[in-house]
């Protein structure tokens, strides 16, 4: 554009504006061509990343369409104050709706109601079967299924599933719930587990990241300094964990770390520990950190190594020639210059660690389950997409917050993966 303007200034008049237009057109065409070239990739990203993640996140707020399934009940419930004993009008509305509703839809709704009141699933299904053949007045049929239908309890659960959007899952993921008055309150302490798990997930990930850094940095430096075959062999050794399955690696740690495992046997043989009182190296946090550090170490080493590889030795020589002793050259020159790799490695390991659950499940103790374990439980075992999505949202938000803080401290533009 700049060129077009200066050119125009020189020539002036009619001619110049045509020229500027032509150039603008050429430029536009080049831009469109570039866009067309990346369009397949964009489309791919949208299809495999943006859409699925967007859908999943939306599920954290999706409350289904109970109101469409039970229109009369929805209307009757909106007139009900949530405190009074349910009256025949409610019974009749629900019975009428259930008579017309498809069996599959009722089952899905029953499962959803069960989240609000455990046990309500079978109760609701039984009710649906019962009222299909019942006639007015309906109250006796309801009470025959369960006496509680005459109390506000189940009707409140029904009221909760009526809106099409809900904060129920997000609140549950934060150990919160709506109490009888609709106010936000803490869940009973006996089931308040999610925040603790979230904190634990971050603690474990942070410990693993620190361990990876402490072990990976010197190793990366060693590889960066090695030449030829030695460097290649070291790289292969670092990459070796990638070539075995996660389960094999984890089982190998069980063999090594258990109370009569290789490590304890060797220590006992060396007389460093009492064979009758072996160290507890597994089925606790120690085992989790060891096994995860092993698995994630390459993700720390490779970015640091690639940054180190790009630092010519001349900088260390320069530091020495300027009077810096080896330790100061390391801390003031080398370490800061490798920081882009260190920050990239730390971020990579930390975020990968957040998603681990098989390893903690196999080598951890009861207090070492991470949040992904629960996400997998809700998604795979009980197909409660709402809770799975809500926990994912909490994790995602926590990571984003952390990322913003990290960005302030380190500066993401300085990251170098390779």
């Amino acid at each position, binding site marked *: 554009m700049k060129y077009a303007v200066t050119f125009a200034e020189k020539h002036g008049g009619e001619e110049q504006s045509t020229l500027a237009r032509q150039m603008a057109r050429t430029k536009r065409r080049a831009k469109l061509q570039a866009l067309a070239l990346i369009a397949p990739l964009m489309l791919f990203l949208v299809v495999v990343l943006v859409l699925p993640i967007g859908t999943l996140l939306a599920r954290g707020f999706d409350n289904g369409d109970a109101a469409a399934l039970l229109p009369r009940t929805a209307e009757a419930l909106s007139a009900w104050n949530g405190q009074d004993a349910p009256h025949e009008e409610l019974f009749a509305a629900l019975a009428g709706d259930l008579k017309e509703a*498809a*069996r*599959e839809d*009722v*089952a*899905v709704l*029953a*499962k959803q109601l*069960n*989240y609000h009141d*455990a*046990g*309500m*699933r*079978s109760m609701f*299904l039984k009710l649906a079967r019962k009222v299909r053949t019942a006639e007015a007045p309906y109250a006796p049929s309801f009470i025959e299924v369960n006496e509680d239908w005459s109390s506000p309890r189940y009707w409140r659960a029904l009221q909760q599933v009526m809106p099409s959007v809900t904060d129920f899952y997000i609140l549950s993921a934060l150990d919160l719930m709506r109490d009888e008055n609709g106010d936000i309150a803490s869940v009973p*302490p*006996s*089931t*308040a*587990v999610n925040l*603790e*798990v979230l904190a634990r997930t971050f603690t474990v990930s942070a410990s693993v990241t620190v361990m990876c850094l402490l072990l990976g940095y010197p190793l990366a430096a060693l590889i960066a300094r090695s030449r030829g075959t030695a460097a290649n062999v070291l790289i292969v050794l670092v990459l070796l964990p990638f070539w075995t399955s996660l389960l094999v690696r984890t089982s190998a740690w*069980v063999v090594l770390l*258990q*109370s*009569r*495992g290789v490590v304890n046997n060797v220590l006992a043989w060396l007389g460093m520990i009492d064979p009758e009182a072996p160290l507890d190296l597994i*089925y606790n946090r120690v085992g989790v950190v060891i096994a995860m550090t092993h698995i994630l170490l390459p993700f720390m080493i490779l970015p640091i190594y690639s940054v180190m590889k790009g630092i010519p030795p001349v900088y260390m020589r320069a530091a020495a020639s300027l009077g810096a002793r080896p330790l100061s050259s390391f801390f003031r020159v080398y370490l800061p210059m490798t920081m882009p790799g260190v920050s990239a490695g730390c971020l990579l390991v930390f975020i990968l660690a957040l998603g681990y659950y098989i390893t903690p*499940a*196999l080598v951890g*103790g*009861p*207090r070492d*389950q991470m949040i992904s374990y*629960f996400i997998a*439980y*809700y*998604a*795979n*075992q*009980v*197909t*409660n997409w709402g*809770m799975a999505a809500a926990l994912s949202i909490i994790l995602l938000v926590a990571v984003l917050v952390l990322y913003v803080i990290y960005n302030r401290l380190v500066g993401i533009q300085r990251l170098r993966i390779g």
Partner: protein
Amino acid sequence: MRSLKLMLGGAAIAVVASAPVLAQDALTVTSYGGSYTKSQEQAFYEPFAKETGVKVLQDEWDGSTAKLKGMVETGQVTWDIVDVEPGHALQGCEEGWLEEIDYSKIGGREGFVDGAAMDCAVATIVFSTIYAYDASKFPNGGPQTMADLFDTEKFPGPRSLRKAPKTTLEFALIADGVPTADVYKVLGTPEGVDRAFAKLDTIKKDVKVWWSAGAQPPQLLADGEVVMATAWNGRIFDAVKNDGKNFKIVWDGQGQDFNLWAEPKGLKNKELADRFIEYTMRPDVMSQQSKYISYGPTKKTAIEKVPADILADLPTAPENTKNSFVVDAEFWADHDEELTERFNKWLAQ
């Protein structure tokens, strides 16, 4: 390999629409893999193929319903028969993504053991959650009852229990004196749940490992990490039979559970699938599977056909079912999440 099988299965079904003749030639059965599927192959797939000329294509799944549901919802049903758990069968039936089973063709519901004949799935095997111990650790006689699992004074040593409330809470109640018939009645009340957790409290410090994968308990026993562990009976049987371990199963208080055949709604080879299920339900066919894996038949007439020496190791043997319960799929469909939350909270305390 798995994806290849899947592709073959998909291809076979794709061909079906245009060439009905070919449809007669292949059936896709989906199961969990491993030694369990191997036993199905030997007992069912191969003889069935031999008898009818229908090739059985295999696929694997991990029991997560999302894929199966998705198949039915999108109309892309590539599986004809799926090996499901009772929970799937219940949910699939209610939500309408499984076909109903026509029991008139397979000898009526009453021919099956309790709980095996579900509306939308029919059980092929009974497996059991039991506890086992390392006999070498108890030279003066091992534990006999469920209560012994919780008795760390009489039978000291570290234990391993399953890291899930299902069966673990039932065991706790049985050990606390609840009759097996009343387990779910008690567990259905808040007091019952408290009682189960209170019983678990008494051995919490002795539970060295909470296992999550079925392969762990025999390994933990073999490594001497624990002296007794709850487990799935097939895993222990396998360790005894194939690895020569001196493990003993305590059948008292065992929780029986099923694996079942189900047909996804909208399957392409309904007639063939029905024929396959009918085939596997013949007593002399069904009784074959116990030869290859220590899970029991579900049909009473098939149990009679199992040789006595094999029967002794099966969950359905009369000797082993004196004090047992059937895991209640309905109960767990209602309470799994609630109790899992509580269980995890309890574990973390």
